[in-house]
C-alpha cells in the first residue's frame, strides 16, 4: 500500500513538470515578455525605457533558459524559467503583475470559495442520488419517461440562465435574499443560500441521468434478485442494497472533485460577487494578469492530480476487493 502510494506520488512529479512546461511555453515562448509589456502599457507611443522598466519590475528582463552573463549555477538560476516556473513547483507563487503577493491572496480567498462549493457539492449529491433512486424505483412507468425528458430539458438550459433567472426571481422580484455580496462572519449564510441552491438545480439534469445509469447497472445483478426473492420490499432493496453497492462508483466520482472545490466556481463567484478564488481568476483574466493566471493553472492541476491520488486510495477503503499493488 505504502509502496503503491509512493509510486503514485512519484508519478505526479512528471505530470506537474509537464504542466509547468506547458504553461511556461504558453506564457513566455509564444508571446515574449516584450509583447506582454506592450499589451499592458498600451500599443502605441511606448518608449523602450518604459518597456524595460515594466519588465525589470516583474523580473521578465532575464533570458528565457540560459543566462550567459552569470557565473556557475547562477547561469541556470537567473532565468525566467527558473524564477517563474521552478519556483511554482515549490508552490512559491511570487507576486502578481500588479505587485501583490499571490500566495497570500490565495490563502485569503480560499475560504469563501470553499464555503460555497462544499455545501453545493453535498446538497447536489444528496438531491441527485435521491432523485435518481426515485426514478429507478418508478422504472418502466410513464412517470419515469416524463422524468427523463425533464432531465434532458434541464440539461439543455444554459447554466447562465439558472444564475440570471434565479438572481432575478428570488433576489430582485421576491427579495428573499440579497442579490450578491459577501460578509465575513456567520451572517454570510444568507448570501450563500441562493448560489448553493442554483448550483444544485443546474446540476440536476446531468446528475440524475448519471446516477440513474449507475443504479440501473446494479439493479440487474444477482444479489438484487436474491434480495427480492427473500421477500424484501422494493424500497428496501433499492435504498439499502442497491444504494450501498452503487456507493463505490459514486464515491470515487466525488473524491476526484474534492480538491478542486478549493478552486471555487468561476461563474457563481463572479455573478454573486463572492471574493473567492473563482472571481480572483476571472479578475486576473480580465486584467490580463499573467502571473495570477499562471499560478491558478498550476494550482488547479496540482489539485486535480491530488484528486486522482485520493480516488485510488478511496477505492481500497470502500471496496475490499481492490488491492493496490
Amino acid at each position: 500500500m505504502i509502496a503503491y502510494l509512493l509510486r503514485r506520488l512519484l508519478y505526479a512529479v512528471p505530470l506537474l513538470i509537464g504542466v509547468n512546461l506547458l504553461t511556461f511555453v504558453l506564457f513566455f515562448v509564444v508571446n515574449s515578455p516584450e509583447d506582454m509589456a506592450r499589451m499592458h502599457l498600451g500599443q502605441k507611443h511606448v518608449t523602450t525605457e518604459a518597456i524595460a522598466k515594466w519588465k525589470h519590475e516583474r523580473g521578465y528582463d532575464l533570458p528565457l533558459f540560459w543566462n550567459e552573463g552569470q557565473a556557475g549555477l547562477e547561469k541556470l538560476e537567473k532565468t525566467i524559467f527558473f524564477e517563474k516556473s521552478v519556483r511554482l513547483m515549490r508552490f512559491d507563487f511570487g507576486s502578481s503583475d500588479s505587485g501583490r503577493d499571490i500566495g497570500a491572496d490565495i490563502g485569503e480567498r480560499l475560504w469563501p470559495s470553499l464555503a460555497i462549493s462544499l455545501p453545493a457539492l453535498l446538497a447536489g449529491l444528496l438531491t441527485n442520488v435521491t432523485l435518481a433512486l426515485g426514478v429507478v424505483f418508478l422504472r418502466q412507468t410513464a412517470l419515469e419517461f416524463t422524468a427523463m425528458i425533464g432531465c434532458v430539458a434541464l440539461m439543455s438550459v444554459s447554466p447562465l440562465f439558472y444564475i440570471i433567472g434565479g438572481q432575478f426571481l428570488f433576489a430582485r422580484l421576491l427579495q428573499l435574499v440579497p442579490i450578491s455580496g459577501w460578509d465575513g462572519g456567520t451572517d454570510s449564510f444568507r448570501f450563500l443560500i441562493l448560489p448553493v441552491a442554483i448550483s444544485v438545480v443546474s446540476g440536476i439534469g446531468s446528475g440524475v441521468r448519471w446516477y440513474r445509469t449507475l443504479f440501473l447497472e446494479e439493479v440487474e445483478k444477482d444479489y438484487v434478485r436474491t434480495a427480492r426473492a427473500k421477500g424484501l420490499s422494493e424500497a428496501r432493496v433499492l435504498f439499502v442494497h442497491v444504494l450501498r453497492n452503487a456507493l463505490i462508483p459514486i464515491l470515487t466520482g466525488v473524491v476526484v472533485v474534492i480538491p478542486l472545490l478549493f478552486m471555487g466556481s468561476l461563474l457563481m463567484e463572479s455573478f454573486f460577487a463572492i471574493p473567492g478564488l473563482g472571481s480572483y481568476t476571472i479578475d486576473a483574466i480580465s486584467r490580463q494578469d499573467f502571473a495570477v493566471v499562471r499560478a491558478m493553472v498550476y494550482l488547479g492541476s496540482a489539485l486535480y492530480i491530488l484528486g486522482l491520488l485520493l480516488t485510488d486510495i478511496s477505492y481500497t477503503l470502500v471496496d475490499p476487493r481492490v488491492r493496490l499493488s
Partner: protein
Amino acid sequence: MTLVFFWTDALVWLLVAMLGGFLFYVRGREHLRRPWRKILADPAAMASLTVLLAFGAIGVLDSLHFQFTDPQAENGNEPLSLLDVALTPLRSRDEKTYSAPLAWHSYSRETLGGNGVVLRDYPRLQYGGAQLADPENQWAGNVVLRGGLGLLGGLALWACGLGARVLFPSPRGRGVRGEGHLSSGSAVTLTALILCLLAGLLTGLASGYHPLGTDKVGQDVLYQSLKSIRTGLVIGTLTTLVMLPFALLLGMLAGYFRGLADDVIQYLYTTLNSIPGVLLIAAAILVTQVYMANHEEDFASLAARADLRLLFLCLILGLTSWTGLCRLLRAETLKLRDMEFVQAARALGVSDGMILLRHILPNVFHIVLISVALDFSSLVLAEAVLSYISIGVDPATHSWGNMINSARLELARDPVVWWPLASALVFMFTLVLAANLFADAVRDAFDPRRGGGT
C-alpha cells in the same frame, strides 16, 4: 460582387462535404445502415433532426460571404453573407436604442421639441410600426393581421412541402413505424409544421415591426439571434473537426502499439487533462489576444479578425477536449487488438498501418460518432459561458453568449429589458435540446451494450 472565403467558412463547407461523403459511404453498406434505420424509426430523434437541419440550413446560408464592391452599399466594405442579404430589412432597419418586441414607440422617454412646448414622451420608432397612422388604436389590429397573414404563409409553405412529398414519394417504403404512438414520419411532418408556422409568424410580424425588439444600439434582436446560430454551430462542429485527428490517431496508436508509445501518449493526455479546462482555454485565449494585438496589420478587416478569433477558439477548445475521446479509443483498441480477426490479419502479414485503417478504425467508429454527438451540445453551452467570462468569441461576433453577457446590465434597468436575454436563451435552448435528444438516439442506436434487441 466577389465571393469571400473566411477561414471558418471554408471549414464549414469542408464539413458539409465530409458529411455528404459519409452519407454516401453509409448508403452502400447494409451493416452501417442498420443503426441509422433505428434512428429513422425514432420519432423524437427525427423531430430533433428536423430542428437541427433547420438550424444547419441557416448556419450554412450564413457561411457564404460576398464582398459587394458597390460603393453605395450602406455598410461600407464589410462582406455580407447570403443570410444577411435575405434578412436585409431586419439588418438595416436600426432604431436608436432599445424597443420592446412589436413596439411602435421607443423604450425611453425623450424630450420632443414642440413649438415652444416641451414635452417628454416616448418617441415613435423610425421603422417599427411606422406604417400606422394612429398607433394607439390600429396597433393591435395590425399586429394580428400581419401575424395571421404570416401564419397562413407558413401553412402554405408547409403544405407545398407536404404536397411535394406525396407527389414524389421516395423509392423505398416510407413511414417506418416506431413502437411509440407516433410514427417518425408524422413526427417530422409535425415538427416541420411548427417550424413553418413560427417562421411564417416571425416573417409576417417582421414586415412591420421588430418581432423580438431591438437592443441597446437599436439592432434587431431577431436578426442577432439568427446570426448567432452560425457561431454556435461552428463552435460545436469545427471543434470536433480539430479534435478528431488527435484523438483518433493518438488513441489508436496508444492502444495498438502499447509499450513506450502508450506511456508517452498517456502521459500527454493526463498532463493536458489535469489542467482545469477553463483555465487552459483562458490562458490560450489571453495569449492569442496578445498575439493579435501585436500583429494588427495581419488582419484585413474587422470581420476577418473576428473570424480568426472564432477559429482560434475552436482550435483551443479542440486541443483541450480530445483527451476524453482519446482515452475511450485507447481502451477500445486495446480490446480489439487481441481479437481473432486482428490476429488473423497480422498472421497474414498485413502491415500495422493497414490493420489500423481497415480493421480497427471501422470498429471504433461508433465511439467517435457517439462522443461527437454528445459533445456538440456541451460545446454550444460552453460558448455562452466563455463569452461571458470574456474569453469566448470576439465581442463583434454575433453570439448568444455575447447577447447574454450584455443582458446582465439590461436586467437591472427599469423597466426590465428582458427580450435580448429571452431570445438568446430560447434559441440556444431549442438547439441544445434538439442536439441532446438526437445524441441520445445516436448513442442508443450505436452503442452495442445498449438494448441490442430493441
